[in-house]
Every structure is written in structure tokens, then in C-alpha cells.
């Protein structure tokens, strides 16, 4: 496949803490092709942020340690690069939109300065050109009075505007891969709609986006494919339509059923998943979902299920699928 952009194989990341070892990502494999928007979904602590931030190597180490695996981006293993080569990729070939713009932007520098810094880190440009480029990007993300706003400090902008500055900063070097970590979680829904419209407009056809979110509505709306994580592992992967209409893993099914639907009026109880997410210090043996799964049987407690392919590009890790598809 020539359009393969990112290929992650058997990635395992652990955190060493005083209380023991946290298994943040276990044996994760997936790939992203050019042009795709892929969602990484799961509940808090499922390992989605650590998985995504491991790609540009932005997970602080220590305490984190990549125990195993490789991350191939445009054919190069990012984990093997030295820090200088990695820096040349970060912010240039891989752009990151962080969740909280108030902490991701420097409070001490003007917006324009910060945008120009991102440009100058990767391109040879005189100040005038950089200024013009930064300004044009502020316009592209629909910040009014871009020229004046270049001189503003982040605290002078609203949360929605700060997030748009972040988007401009992540995209102005036209990266091949955009990693967006819950880019609208801190925003109101009308602003969320604005921000996603901007991201959609700005994303070039040849670039790909990995969107981390817990909002299944957003996933359905803008993503081509979905990766579902539970307890630091990938449990299901498929096209958005496949996963939403035919969820294969009991966790995905439970997750979709827990979402209250808009507009039915006061309704019956929701089908919730019982219990709570297990502690990452001590995941259950076998299938990590076994203590909450309504369909668990003795094998789930003893063995870890492998992936079974249920449709083209749609696979899930559950014993119940054996015989319904091919092992992969």
C-alpha cells in the first residue's frame, strides 16, 4: 500500500510509579492511510492519549517507557530516531492539537510570536514573510482582525479563539499527520461545530488525522474509521458505519447503548455497562473486559482473546466471534 502513512505494531507503554507499574498501552497495532480521519475512542484511562502522544514521542519518559513495538511513519521507525531528527518531524510532518489551549499556549508570549516560532523552527523565512504567513493562518481559522490579534496574549482571547490559534499553529506547516487530542472537549457545542468545520476545511486531502475523543457523536460525524480502546488495549477496529451498525465487541455495544439519544423525550433506563473500568495497576487476567461483560464465560477469565475479522477492515478481540469470521 503506497498511501500507508502510519503503521504502529505491538506498541506497549508502561509507566513506572511508586505504587507499581501502570500498563498504559498494551500490544497496540493499527495503521493510518493518507486522507483518512481515524477516531481513537474509549473512556478516561483507556490509554488513547498515551497511544497517540507516543507517535510524536511527547509522553514524558521517565515515568513512561516504551517496552515494545515500533511506530513507522512514512516508513521510518520514529522510536529509533535521535532527538534532532524527531524534532524535525514534530510540528512539521506531525502537527498536534492539544485538548486545553490555555495550558498549551505560552502565557508569556504574544500569539504572533508563538505562531512565528512554529514557522521558524522548520522553515527558512525572513520575519516579514513569517509574519504574513502567520497572519494569513489566523484569517484561515476565522479569527477576526488577524493583524491586531497577532499582538494579543492568549489570556486576551476566549477559549474558542485560543483553540483556533492552536489549530493554526498545528496546521501552518501543513503536516502529513494531524493528531487532535479531544480538541473540542473544553468548548461549547456551537463552538465545537465551528472548530470541526475549520479542521475539516483545513485538512488537506493527502494528510491524515487521528482524532482522540470520547464523543461517539463526533466520531460518527467526521471520522472514516474507528479504533475502540478499553483498558489500554485495542478491542475493535472498523469503518465508522460498520462499527456503529454492527458493533462486534461487547464493550463497543455497551458503550453505544449507554449514550442517551437526542430527542426521544423522557425515556426508559439506559442499558449501562455494570461496574467500573479496572485499575491499570491490576487488569483482570484473560480478557480485560471479563468482569463487566454480560456475556463472559470461563474461557474469558483464563485466556486473552485474539482478533477475529468480521468484515473487510472490521475486527474485534472477543471469543464470541470465533467461527463468525477469520482469525487475524
Amino acid at each position, binding site marked *: 500500500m503506497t498511501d500507508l502513512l502510519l503503521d504502529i505494531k505491538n506498541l506497549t507503554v508502561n509507566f513506572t510509579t511508586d505504587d507499581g507499574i501502570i500498563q498504559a498501552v498494551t500490544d497496540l497495532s493499527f495503521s493510518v492511510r493518507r486522507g483518512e480521519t481515524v477516531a481513537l475512542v474509549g473512556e478516561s484511562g483507556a490509554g488513547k492519549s498515551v497511544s497517540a502522544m507516543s507517535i510524536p514521542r511527547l509522553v514524558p519518559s521517565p515515568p513512561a517507557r516504551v517496552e515494545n513495538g515500533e511506530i513507522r511513519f512514512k516508513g521510518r521507525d520514529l522510536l529509533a530516531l535521535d532527538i534532532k531528527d524527531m524534532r524535525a518531524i514534530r510540528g512539521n510532518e506531525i502537527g498536534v492539537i492539544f485538548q486545553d489551549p490555555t495550558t498549551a499556549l505560552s502565557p508569556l508570549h504574544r500569539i504572533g510570536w508563538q505562531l512565528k516560532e512554529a514557522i521558524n523552527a522548520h522553515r527558512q523565512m525572513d520575519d516579514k514573510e513569517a509574519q504574513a504567513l502567520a497572519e494569513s493562518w489566523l484569517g484561515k481559522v476565522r479569527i477576526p482582525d488577524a493583524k491586531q490579534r497577532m499582538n494579543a496574549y492568549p489570556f486576551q482571547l476566549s477559549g474558542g479563539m485560543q483553540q483556533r490559534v492552536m489549530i493554526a499553529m498545528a496546521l501552518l506547516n501543513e503536516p502529513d499527520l494531524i493528531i487532535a487530542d479531544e480538541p473540542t472537549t473544553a468548548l461549547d*457545542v456551537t463552538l465545537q461545530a465551528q472548530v470541526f468545520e475549520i479542521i475539516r476545511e483545513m485538512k488537506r486531502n493527502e494528510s491524515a488525522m487521528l482524532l482522540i475523543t470520547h464523543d*461517539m457523536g463526533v466520531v460518527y460525524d467526521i471520522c472514516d474509521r474507528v479504533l475502540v480502546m478499553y483498558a489500554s488495549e485495542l478491542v475493535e477496529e472498523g469503518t465508522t458505519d460498520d462499527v456503529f451498525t454492527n458493533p462486534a465487541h461487547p464493550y463497543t455495544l455497551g458503550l453505544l447503548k449507554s*449514550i*442517551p439519544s*437526542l430527542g426521544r*423525550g423522557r425515556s426508559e433506563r*439506559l*442499558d*449501562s455497562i455494570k461496574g467500573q473500568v479496572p485499575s491499570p495497576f491490576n487488569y483482570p487476567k484473560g480478557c480485560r473486559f471479563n468482569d463487566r461483560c454480560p456475556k463472559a464465560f470461563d474461557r474469558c477469565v483464563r485466556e486473552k482473546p485474539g482478533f477475529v475479522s468480521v468484515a473487510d477492515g472490521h475486527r474485534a478481540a472477543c471469543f464470541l466471534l470465533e467461527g463468525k469470521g477469520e482469525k487475524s
Partner: protein
Amino acid sequence: MSGSMSSMAINNDKKNNTPENLVEIRNLRTWYPIRRGVLARTVGQVKAVDHVSFAIKKGETLGLVGESGCGKTTLGRTLVGLEQAQAGEILFQGRNILSMESKERQEIRRRMQMIFQDPLSSLNPRMLVRDIVTEGMRAFGMIRENQAEETAMALLGEVGMSKESLTRYPHEFSGGQCQRISIARAVSMRPDFMVLDEAVSALDVSVQAQVLNLLMDLQDKYGLTYLFISHNLSVVSHIADHVAVMYLGKMVEYGKVADVIESPVHPYTQALISAVPVPGKRTERIILQGETPSAANPPDGCPFHPRCPECQTICRTTVPRLEQADDRLFSCHMRSQHL
């Protein structure tokens, strides 16, 4: 979760009689003065809640939705007495609590409880769960000290937690469990009315569903009346009977949940609902330009006019009145029948 059988019976009872209004607010105003200079002169007002009126029938849930800064939390806090109202009335069973003597007010406080958004910070980190859930009852002399253990155990059972939790501290629990403890604490006072301020917003969806189920079970079991404040329209449409939409301190639309969600009247409600991404449905969005103006300096005329796709001259100059059509309330010149 216990008690679903008995809850059904009570639920039916409730629906047979025409319920009265338990809580009603009339022209409620909560303004914060902006003070400047050495003399702290008042130079303006932040109109957090500006002339809002609505009623909630006994046993029903009113959903209060709107975006950050629209005044929904202030309204909820004013209702339970955590903020001071400047003007207007809050009627509880027909009596204005703002003009009550403090002693009488005390009893009303017991009957109106509040659940806050952040489950961990609303529990005292230095108190055991047993003491947290029984503190109110002890303060009101509802139980004796030697009954605390037993009562606490019953309360925790009610919210689906084990008795091992009794002698633990809040930090030992997950967000969903802390929210259950908060609910147990509120329910312990045998309230009639509860203000739930973004009570499930901090929780993951699977846990959110559990807590929503718990809240609905308790409501059926005890005939509770809820004001459910949330920015999440899907959650509100699931739990509420009626919904009020706020924008910049004002209520812009009110009606039955299914009606408002399916056929919103006000342009803001229309944009708000179209902006909610729904699994299984890809729709055209109405993208609003710009952001909510500051409540300290609201625009003239209709507060929504700078962002409204249908704005006309009258919207810039005249504040629209709240009008009624069938059982729907809305304030918009463009939808008015009096033009």
C-alpha cells in the same frame, strides 16, 4: 439498584393526580455588581440571570440547557439560596421563600438539595463517607449519633454502594462513585426538590448511564422533582420532561422536551440542536458565527442578534418579549405572531 418494583407503583400514582407546581420562579434576577475604583462604585451589572420565569410540577424534571456563561448554574444556585436574588420570587409550594423568616427558610433548605458538577471537590476530603452522608441528618436532628452507622449503610445501599465504603475517604473512590456518595448525601435529607448542576458531565458515558439510571430510579421512588442543569442536550432529552433554553441570562425557549428537540422555534435553539453530533445521523449543521457576548456588556435588543442568521433591524433595537404558542414559550421577533 434497588426498588424498581415499588417505584413503578409510585410513578403511576403520580401520573393519576394532576400535579401542582412544586417550584415556580417569577421574574427572577440575579445580577452581580461590577465595582471599580477606591470607592468601589458600581459601574455596571453582570446580568447573570435576567427576568427568568418558569414552573416545575411536582415529580417532574425540568432540563435547563445553554452554553457556558448563559447563567444556568447561577439560576440553580439562586434557587437553593447559594446566590442572592436581586428581585423576583421563588415560590416553593406556592410560598415565596425569598421573603421568609430565616427559621422557616431553614426547613426549606432541607427540602431543596443540590448536586454539584465536580464529584470529588464537593465532598470534604477529611471526612469519612459515613460522616459525609449523615452530616446533614445529624445537623437537623433527624437521627441520633448511634444511628449514624446504620443509616449511612442504608443510604449507601440506596445508591448502589457497598458497606465497605463507610469507613473510607472520598479520594479512594472514582468519579462515578463520588457522585453516588453526593447523591446519597442529598437524598438523606428527604428532599422534595433537587438541583442537579451538570451532575453527570464529569463522568464517562458508561458511568454516566449508571448515574442517570440511579437518578431516575430515586425520582420514581421518592417522587422527587428535579432541575437538571446541563450543557448536554442528549442527556437532558433523556431525563427531562420539559426543557428551558437560556442564552445570556435570559430564557429564550421553553417547552416539552420532545417538541423543543424535534421542532425548535428560536434560532438559537435551532443552531444549538443542529450542532449536537448524534451517532447514526449526519445532518447539515447551522454554524453560528462568533461567540457568546459578555453578560457584563450584552448587546442591545435581542441578546442573540449579533450571531443570529435571521437578524433584522428590530432585533438590534428592541428586546423581544416571551410569547406563548400552544404550550411553547419563546422570545424572538422573527417568530412573533404580533408583527
